[in-house]
């Protein structure tokens, strides 16, 4: 296979096979996302559209409804998967997930606040969501600084759960203050990529690109930090600076994903978990594998959300939570928790 060619920077034998497999899987899920929906347009009718024919109704459903949500799902999954991997590597905690640590909740609270002050979910700038995510990140960092907390994966998650609970309570308070806003917030807070306009994507794309560039910069120092802080310093890196860049990157990614799809919980946990299982402990390999796995997980969950409640749809956030919770249990109950 040509992917084994030594020209690719990441093409170590160990990684190329899972990468290709995940890429193929993602391709199949993208096709499925275009073929299946909650409406009357069947998979075969949708396939006709992909083949260049099909009825006007089918063309509309595939190109105006299923394609946009597929693209938004791709970007959301990419952002959350990468953010989860970065956060876990930085905190050396396999459970550190934006959703569990309160980063998403911080972002969600900021958006709820914006909706209360009159922004509509359609016109919302991802900037607000990113600011909220940044604040959430800052609180996580503060929590890891608390004596002993940073070394105990489960305690960090407890701290995150506390923060999430607090932010959700504040969000509920906002919802009680204004019923109109409550309707929008309630829907948005569950997480969904249905009916979101592609213009939202344009608003978040610059931040995603910036985050990807930052990842390229921090990936190598982050891998060095896995050897220990002293080793990283010895290799000429500045852990403090790296940590700051990672927090910035995570905030950009989670904020963008939250602006697009709402605060999706567990995606940042499941995706790096799968990626690590195949890529091993090297964060650079994990990050590469997150690129196809993240979108695949989100899109697969979205296809499920369309099919199990037809003619309505289940919110995507419900499905990701249903998938993610067992994974969380599996990681915690696994005899020894991998320390990253």
């Amino acid at each position, binding site marked *: 296979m040509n992917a084994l060619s030594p020209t690719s920077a990441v093409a170590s034998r160990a990684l190329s096979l899972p990468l290709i497999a995940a890429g193929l899987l993602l391709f199949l899920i993208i096709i499925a996302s275009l073929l299946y929906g*909650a409406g*009357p347009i069947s998979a075969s009718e949708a396939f006709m559209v992909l083949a260049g024919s099909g009825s006007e109704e089918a063309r509309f459903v595939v190109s105006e409804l299923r394609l946009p949500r597929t693209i938004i799902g791709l970007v959301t999954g990419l952002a959350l998967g990468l953010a989860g991997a970065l956060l876990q590597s930085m905190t050396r905690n396999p459970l550190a997930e934006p959703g569990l640590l309160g980063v998403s909740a911080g972002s969600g609270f900021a958006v709820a606040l914006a909706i209360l002050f009159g922004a509509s*979910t359609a016109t919302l700038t991802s900037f607000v969501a990113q600011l909220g995510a940044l604040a959430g990140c800052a609180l996580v960092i503060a929590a890891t600084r608390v004596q002993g907390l940073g070394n105990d994966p489960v305690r960090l998650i407890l701290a995150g759960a506390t923060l999430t609970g607090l932010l959700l309570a504040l969000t509920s308070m906002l919802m009680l203050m204004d*019923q109109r806003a409550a*309707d929008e917030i309630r829907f948005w807070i569950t997480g969904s990529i249905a009916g979101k306009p592609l213009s939202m994507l344009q608003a978040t794309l610059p931040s995603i690109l910036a985050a990807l560039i930052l990842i390229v910069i921090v990936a190598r120092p982050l891998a060095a930090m896995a050897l220990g802080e002293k080793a990283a310093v010895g290799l000429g890196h500045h852990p403090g600076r790296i940590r700051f860049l990672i927090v910035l990157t995570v905030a950009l990614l989670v904020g963008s994903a939250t602006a697009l799809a709402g605060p999706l919980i567990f995606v940042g946990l499941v995706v790096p978990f799968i990626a690590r299982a195949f890529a091993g402990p090297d964060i650079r390999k994990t990050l590469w594998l997150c690129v196809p796995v993240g979108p695949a997980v989100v899109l697969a969950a979205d296809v499920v959300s369309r099919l199990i409640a037809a*003619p309505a749809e289940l919110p995507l956030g419900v499905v990701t939570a249903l998938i993610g919770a067992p994974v969380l249990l599996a990681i915690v109950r696994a005899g020894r928790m991998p320390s990253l």
Partner: protein
Amino acid sequence: MSSLSNRFHSTLLQTLAAVAVVSVSLSQAVAETRTVESAYGPVQISGQPGRVVTLYEGALDAALAVGANAVGAVITRGGSDVAEYIKSEAGDIAIVGAPAETNIEAVIAAQPDLILAPPRINQQQVALLSRIAPVVASNVPMFQPDSWERETRLFAKAMGREAEAEKVIGQVKERISEVAQVVSAKIPAGQRDAALVRWMPQGPLVMAEGLFSASLLQAVGFELTDKDLVKEGRPHSEPLSLENLSSMDQSWVFLATLNEDGDKALDAARKSPAFARLNAVQNDQVIGVSGQLWTSATGPLAALAILDDIEAAVNAIQP
């Protein structure tokens, strides 16, 4: 002597008659304690209760329609006050809770002589509220075409204002036949198919055919359908994937959102490509309506307001 005795007799008779009248009216006052069948058994009520607290939009509507002194009400769904359509009649009414949650202290503060409650109120609540005043919870099955009539009669009986109820129900029926004539004059048969949809932040919600406003649409001649998308056991509404919106593409689409006015609802929906391509939208036969009135309220005043909406919309059609 005879004249004297005659006079005496007539006086006696008059006195007796007066006593009889008094005793009859006294016994009437006692007999006015009537039994009203509520969802939780019979309730004894006497006279015309002065202060009425309503825990149900349909009860507030009925109370105001029959001229009772409503002193407490719950907020409409998605709002922070009583529904817009009834605000002027309700005046400065005290808010004693939301549709599903009653603020008991607020009810006590309103000092009610009678409490009117929704069919779905639970028994514990009724037991608690009954310690404040008699509670009449509607025992009328919801989402039937005549639910509002039967509820209005029930609540009116509780308030001792049955004659007023018959009068206002008669008014509604008269308006129905008036609007039905307008519909049949303005819209050719075969083009009266319609759908009632509520636009929510997450997308469309198709409203059941049995809904109050839906039954009024049918009463004036629209052929309303929910295309069986509203499942059994969900008599109010069903959320819809955007992919299914085209199944709601009737000649007429009545579009509501909660607590925003109809025009804003239309603007929001038009931004969605799935909505913008409906034939009803392209033909400009989408009627934006208030969700508070059309998808939450019931009662004679709501009926009159909805019928006004329908008449105005149909009259606006260019021939």
